[in-house]
């Protein structure tokens, strides 16, 4: 399949009465979905997915068309685009689009040749999380999770995209490899990364698959250091756990989620209404605070501070335009590198390699 051609509606018409969405857990809470349903009459059927892979699967099932919208992360979005599963969105129909962080208006993970296949939503970095009781000097480098010191007490996500984290670290540690973009690795570079990850495997207690896994692991003392999301840090801290997180010197990978519209959507009007609604500052702020991440809409800053003083700064929304440059956002690795050569390794290779790492 090829990317779908645009098929924009002229205006947002009357809602179809229903909307089927695939979302991350926590991305469609009653707190903001109920008012939407009341306002628009679009009843939202939510399907929570546990992983990017599951999202792709769900969106493709039944030849597409079962679900209208998906909150895809960068490691899934290109797969959805090139698989013809999602269609371009007419951003002119989204009033808040102009308030988005500039880098998120047409990022490479959801915009191809000027066509917006996705509408950026929330984003955040993958941080280095550690137990302040057990790790007394705050780590400043990702080397902490490749270090024998915490053997058997390390946890990293169970996700092929984790290769990029290691690549980011290797890019700084071993410049001779010539890694420029952690998502664009040739075979030699990939092999180097994989051998590093294989060494790391002996240190790992568990590759976490669900957000809650990581929380449990830290809470129960199974793990003292690992790669995590800010959401987990916040949850653990409020639960009284002695943890802290940091973005180490090498920088961090991160995710930027986008709402994407199925190319066979049966509820296009409701979908546009929904996208417009969740782009509003109020919803963006609610979402950010609930999940522990940063909105795409710069205007959400006030709303965040209103609900939780200082949270706008805590999530770096106030300096988003610069902060965002530190983060290497997830995107699906492809065979074709940015320079047009076909020497890069694609996602299926990563996936195989990741399987090898895990064993």
């Amino acid at each position, binding site marked *: 399949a090829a990317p779908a051609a645009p098929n924009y509606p002229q205006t947002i018409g009357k809602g179809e009465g229903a909307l089927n969405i695939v979302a991350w857990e926590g991305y469609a809470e009653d707190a903001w979905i109920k008012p939407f349903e009341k306002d628009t009459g679009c009843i939202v059927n939510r399907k929570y997915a546990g992983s990017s892979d599951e999202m792709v699967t769900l969106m493709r099932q*039944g030849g597409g068309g079962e679900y209208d919208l998906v909150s895809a992360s960068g490691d899934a979005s290109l797969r959805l685009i090139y698989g013809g599963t999602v269609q371009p969105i007419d951003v002119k129909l989204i009033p808040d689009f102009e308030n988005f962080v500039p880098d998120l208006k047409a990022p490479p993970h959801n915009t191809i040749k000027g066509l917006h296949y996705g509408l950026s939503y929330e984003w955040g970095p993958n941080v280095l999380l550690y137990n302040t009781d057990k790790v007394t000097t705050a780590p400043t480098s990702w080397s902490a999770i490749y270090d024998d010191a915490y053997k058997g007490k390390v946890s990293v996500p169970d996700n092929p995209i984790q290769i990029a984290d290691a690549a980011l670290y290797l890019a700084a540690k071993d410049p001779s490899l010539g890694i420029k973009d952690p998502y664009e690795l040739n075979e030699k570079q990939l092999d180097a990364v994989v051998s590093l990850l294989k060494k790391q495997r002996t240190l790992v207690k568990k590759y976490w698959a669900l*957000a809650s896994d990581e929380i449990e692991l830290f809470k129960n003392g199974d793990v003292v250091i690992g790669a995590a999301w800010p959401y987990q840090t916040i949850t653990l801290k409020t639960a009284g756990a002695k943890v802290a997180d940091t973005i180490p010197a090498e920088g961090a990978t991160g995710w930027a989620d986008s709402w994407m519209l199925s190319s066979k959507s049966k509820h296009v009007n409701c979908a546009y209404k929904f996208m417009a609604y969740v782009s509003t500052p109020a919803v963006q702020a609610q979402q950010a605070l609930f999940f522990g991440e940063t909105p795409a809409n710069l205007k959400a800053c006030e709303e965040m501070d209103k609900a939780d003083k200082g949270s706008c700064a805590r999530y770096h929304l106030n300096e988003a335009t610069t902060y965002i440059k530190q983060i290497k956002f997830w995107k699906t690795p492809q065979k074709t590198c940015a320079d047009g050569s076909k020497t890069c390794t694609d996602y299926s290779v990563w996936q195989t390699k990741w399987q090898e790492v895990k064993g």
Partner: protein
Amino acid sequence: MIDRLHTVFQTTTDRLSAVLSGAVRRLSAQLWRRPGISAGLLLSPPLGWFVLIYLAALAALFVSAFWATDSFTGEIDRTWSLDNFRTILDSETYRLIAFRTIFMAAAVTITDVVLAFPFAYYMVRLATPGQRIALFTLVLVPLWSSYLARVYAWRLIFAHDGVLNWLLHGLGFERVEIGYTNWAMWIVFSYIWLPFMIMPIYAALERIPYSLFEASLDLGAKAWRTFFKVILPLALPGVVAGSIFTFSLTLGDYITPVLVGGPGSDFIGNVVYANVGIANNVPFAAAYATIPLIVMAIYLIAARRSGAFDVM
């Protein structure tokens, strides 16, 4: 209500410990009387430990159902309350999902009984020994391939452009759109767990003497009557065993709903998964997971009161 639940809990614990200590007493009495069996009991320490941990795990689960979680922080609040159960009962969605799960488990069980019975009957009564081996193979082979792969195979069949529609189209029928619906789940579940019904029914049928069948014909009953009055009641233990298997396997599943279900196909397992996986709300998940247990308990107690077990 809490008081009552508490009493129930207490009584259950008491009973259980009475039963266990009774068992121990009886065991030692037996040991004395039958020294021959003592060696067989060398096996029991691991079993004892296992039962202990088994009970601990169950208890941990049930107890946590009465706790609460701060929805924002995810911290567990160890004060006893029935809030979780109240939430479940008050929410239409949760009620619906619980009902759907139990209903589907029941539907799958009934379907499997209906399918497995003639199949097992054929194997026991009509098949030659060679055929019997072939049919056994047919039943067992799928079990050796991955559960997931089998479910995916069904997706290929049900897909809009899948095998089924290709077949229907070829035969000149209308295409059907049963992929990603509860119908699809029903078929897939029935298929996946069918061997777990066939095997116990086969074992039960094998034990029914053929002369009972003849006696029924002799007394003027035709095949249907013989089936419902003689064969079915006597095969009931096998049907019950198979039903326990298929019912519980369906009840506990949460993958098939994800893979072949559509919107509105969530099972209790999915809610449990969601609550543990995201909101980290173990207590709520535990409470929700006990719902079918409570339903079954009520059902079994009612069945017992009505004397349904006396037949066995």
